[in-house]
């Protein structure tokens, strides 16, 4: 008789065998692609108006916030508008990952109750969807930047590592919050307040240099602060980011990703009885 293909035994607390988990996740990568695609299709982002809305929504948002800045400060210039749009669009990558991720496990209830698969696929898909929504806004930003007549430079390529750090942070946040939402279903109602607070604590409506010295702690305490500042520095001003900023952002992203993933993986085997 051949060896059993699958053996199920009681699990000890902690992580599942990571290599096997990774293999099982990797073999299902088409699920993530297919799920994101059909989710976007369902939200009508495959139609002309759907895609226009994808671009129009952040544009209108940035216009509203720009209006706010003009009224509060009494004046403004084109660099400021470029800064606002660049950081706002990246902020929405993180915010969309959070709002998409929070319900990813509870919404996948039917699938979780009936199929054995690495549950982490669901929050990962939420982040992939957020990335697909982010990409067109990046194109819009580059167009705005050209219209505003800001000079292009090679330093702008620094935006790539910054974007990778932001994506890792989004992934960590989505994984963490999807797991928390299984145990506390009302987290999703707190989420709008959380993202709104994050928005105001980040250098989006203001530039990092305008921050009062007694609030400098934000640069370290808010994971988005160094990321958004470096992003704006690279894309708007064409400056290389401060190494300390990159390292702080990276430390936050890696930290949240590792802690969140640890919690998720050690909990996911009981999701089926918790849903």
């Amino acid at each position, binding site marked *: 008789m051949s060896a*059993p293909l699958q053996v199920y035994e009681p699990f000890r607390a902690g992580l599942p065998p990571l290599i096997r988990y990774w293999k099982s996740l990797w073999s299902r990568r088409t699920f993530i692609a297919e799920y994101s695609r059909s989710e976007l299709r369902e939200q009508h982002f495959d139609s002309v108006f759907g895609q226009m809305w994808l671009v129009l929504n952040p544009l209108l948002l940035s216009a509203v916030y720009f209006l706010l800045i003009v009224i509060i400060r009494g004046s403004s210039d084109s660099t400021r508008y470029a800064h606002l749009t660049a950081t706002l669009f990246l902020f929405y990558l993180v915010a969309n990952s959070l709002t998409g991720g929070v319900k990813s496990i509870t919404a996948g209830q039917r699938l979780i109750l009936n199929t054995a698969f690495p549950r982490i696929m669901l929050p990962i898909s939420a982040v992939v969807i957020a990335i697909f929504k982010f990409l067109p806004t990046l194109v819009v930003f580059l167009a705005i930047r050209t219209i505003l007549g800001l000079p292009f430079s090679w330093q702008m390529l620094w935006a790539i590592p910054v974007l990778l750090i932001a994506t890792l942070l989004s992934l960590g946040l989505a994984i963490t919050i999807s797991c928390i939402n299984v145990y506390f279903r009302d987290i999703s109602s707190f989420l709008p307040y959380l993202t709104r607070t994050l928005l105001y604590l980040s250098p989006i409506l203001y530039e990092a240099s305008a921050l009062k010295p007694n609030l400098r702690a934000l640069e370290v305490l808010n994971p988005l602060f160094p990321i958004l500042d470096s992003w704006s520095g690279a894309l708007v001003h064409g400056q290389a980011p401060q190494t300390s900023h990159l390292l702080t952002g990276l430390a936050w992203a890696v930290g949240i990703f590792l802690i969140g993933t640890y919690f998720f993986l050690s909990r996911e085997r009981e999701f089926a009885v918790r849903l």
Partner: protein
Amino acid sequence: MRSASKEYKTNEIAVSVRNLGLTYSTAIDRRPTLKARVKSFGRGTKQTRIIRALDNVNLDVEYGHVLGVIGTNGAGKSSLMRVIAGIIPPSQGRIEVFGSVSTLLALGVGFNPSMSGRDNVFLGGLAAGMTRDEIEAHFQEIADFSELGDAIDAPMRTYSSGMYARLAFSVAATVRPDILIVDEALSTGDAKFKEKSLNRIKELRSDDRALILVSHAMATLRDVCNDVAWLHQGRLVQRGEPNATIEAYQEFLQVGKSAVIDEDL
């Protein structure tokens, strides 16, 4: 849920369940909230309860056989199926599965009701570990077997429960798994489809697949099963020849051989 990887012979063991115990804690509230947790803080109100779903269950399923599982509601039938399918890890004991398992637990397909039947079949299959090509190869057969016609491209929220059941059964039975687990899915189809799915089950049995059927339809079980296992409160009460086991179960229920329990309800 991979299509058959190996050929298995009749009477070889497909699933072996040894000393299986399953205990878990679950939230009392259907929607556990932070608010409730904060409110009950310091009062010692319990937020979770312990459920002993299965206790010392031993069971073997051989290829070429159909095992029926009966028991009252809450007897642990669905939990047993989920453990065998690898969805919930056991608390005690060991389960060995010699082959690919396709589950049809409580109508698994259609996890996202706003997507079409087609999308749901693909997503369900991909999540279960099939490749795109495998699903594409089977898709036409699935659509034909389900007889849904154009409805396959309509959002699944527009489906009736019978249509759900049809699609779910078609997926599970068409991908030709080594081991097929069917959990009370036959009961919602109409007479014609029920006939058709029973024929498919018999076909799979003679094709040397292993099947586990959870059902309350005693007549069906007498018809197709080689073996029936009776679960009660998480324990295996009796296992053996269908007629004898079903009779013992019906005697236990004190309803005798009334028409109600013999019907496919």
